[in-house]
């Protein structure tokens, strides 16, 4: 499978189902790649898979979750006894394990919704930042469980994705008000809890999310409002940023911006994500359970060692 075919399959998977997480679409692409691969040995297949992963992460989708999802997928499928003599048999086992991985991952949003709904009390006011499909799924589940709650969403410039979130919440029958990004300090006294999604959860327990999350987190911590992060476990990244500067450029800017700008021009471009330190996060809801930020390292050690 050539790189343009990989990109085509990936973009088609994303377009077919807009609710699909970019990481899941990437994993589907990789399973297809393994099936069609003409590699003869495990080492060659692994090398080609790594190059395919690079191709997929070079598209304009969410790089953080795609790269962490692919990394975990690669570990999962190779972490079995692949001592068959027939390589085609090995490939079949890898594809089957890949499908098992995909099934567990696909059900993660339901598990998260089930864990998070009890934290939305009746009559609660929730503040959201930008668009997150996991949060949408959870709030729809809470609405179906006949909970009454009110939602404020930040508009989230530069792409104004908060508007899309408001539209989807209205469709689900949840009362939702759009606020300016600058109005976070103003609205904070009215809300009971803050919920954000994540593009990546790092080893320190902090999160990488749409730009503006760090500001929201600092404001919430100062005014003693809990901040809950909802993220699937494939978003756990083996990275340890100490501050905003430590985020790699590939996460901050989209692929097209990186290709067209040199290093000095990048300073003028605006980053799309920021890093929120673990001190400002109350709890992280994942399909592995409800974790405190310090437990993320524990889970990562279990996943990777």
């Amino acid at each position: 499978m050539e790189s343009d075919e990989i990109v085509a399959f990936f973009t088609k998977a994303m377009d077919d189902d807009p609710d699909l997480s970019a990481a899941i679409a990437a994993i589907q692409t990789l399973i297809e790649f393994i099936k069609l691969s003409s590699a003869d040995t495990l080492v060659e297949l692994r090398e080609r898979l790594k190059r395919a992963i690079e191709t997929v992460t070079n598209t304009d989708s969410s790089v953080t979750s795609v790269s962490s999802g692919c990394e975990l997928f690669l570990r999962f499928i190779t972490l079995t006894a692949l001592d068959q003599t027939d390589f085609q048999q090995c490939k079949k086992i890898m594809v089957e394990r890949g499908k098992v991985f995909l099934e567990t991952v696909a059900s993660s949003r339901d598990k998260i919704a089930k864990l998070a709904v009890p934290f939305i009390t009746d009559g609660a006011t929730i503040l959201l930042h930008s668009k997150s499909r996991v949060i949408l799924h959870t709030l729809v589940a809470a609405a179906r469980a006949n909970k009454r709650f009110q939602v404020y969403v930040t508009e989230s410039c530069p792409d104004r994705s908060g508007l899309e979130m408001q539209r989807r919440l209205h469709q689900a029958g949840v009362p939702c008000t759009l606020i300016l990004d600058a109005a976070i300090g103003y609205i904070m006294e009215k809300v009971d809890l803050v919920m954000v999604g994540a593009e990546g959860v790092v080893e320190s327990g902090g999160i990488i999310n749409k730009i503006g999350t760090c500001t929201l987190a600092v404001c919430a911590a100062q005014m003693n409002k809990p901040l809950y992060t909802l993220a699937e476990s494939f978003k756990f990244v083996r990275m340890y940023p100490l501050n905003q500067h430590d985020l790699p450029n590939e996460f901050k800017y989209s692929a097209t911006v990186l290709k067209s700008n040199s290093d000095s021009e990048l300073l003028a471009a605006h980053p799309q994500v920021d890093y929120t330190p673990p001190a400002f996060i109350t709890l992280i809801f994942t399909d592995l359970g409800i974790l405190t930020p310090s437990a993320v390292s524990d889970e990562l050690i279990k996943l990777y060692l």
Partner: protein
Amino acid sequence: MQRYSSSSLITKVLCDAYDKNKKFRVIVVDARPKLEGKEMLRRLIKHGVTCSYLLINAVSYIIPEVSKVLLGAHALLANGYVMSRCGSSQIALLAKAYNVPVLVCCETYKFCERVQTDAFVCNELGDPGDLVTNSKTEHLSNWRDLSSLNLLNLVYDVTPPDFVNVVITEVGTIPCTSVPVVLRVKNVETS
């Protein structure tokens, strides 16, 4: 970059970074009575690293210029506290107040199952005579005769995990709170 007192591990880290052509400046902070920082300073300068040297009472002056703080450790306790040379917790506290990341470099064999929240419950006492030697005027020369005077020379102190951003070990970078996780994994491996 600032580092405290002496640690062969940190000297190696800095020398390796220098060999890899990284551009950085080191500030070595030292404290009485041991003045161990001088040995580290000597080794770094011999290697060619640009260094500054100051005593611990001037740290608040220099901290706005510091990008990272590197500390060695004598032990890492099970509740995430770092036991290190006396003075380390002061530096970590100051770094936290100025939003400077604190990195502790520690091998996993130094992880211990003991729990301690302060430096008094269990510590080592150094020679109280060391505190007297440096004075030009002999004010404390008869300190042994004064019954109301006690000289206290503590060797170690404990730094709470809130002041430490990351612990770097040979198995990876972990937050301070993950020490019991590593201990558990190692116990499983050895048993």
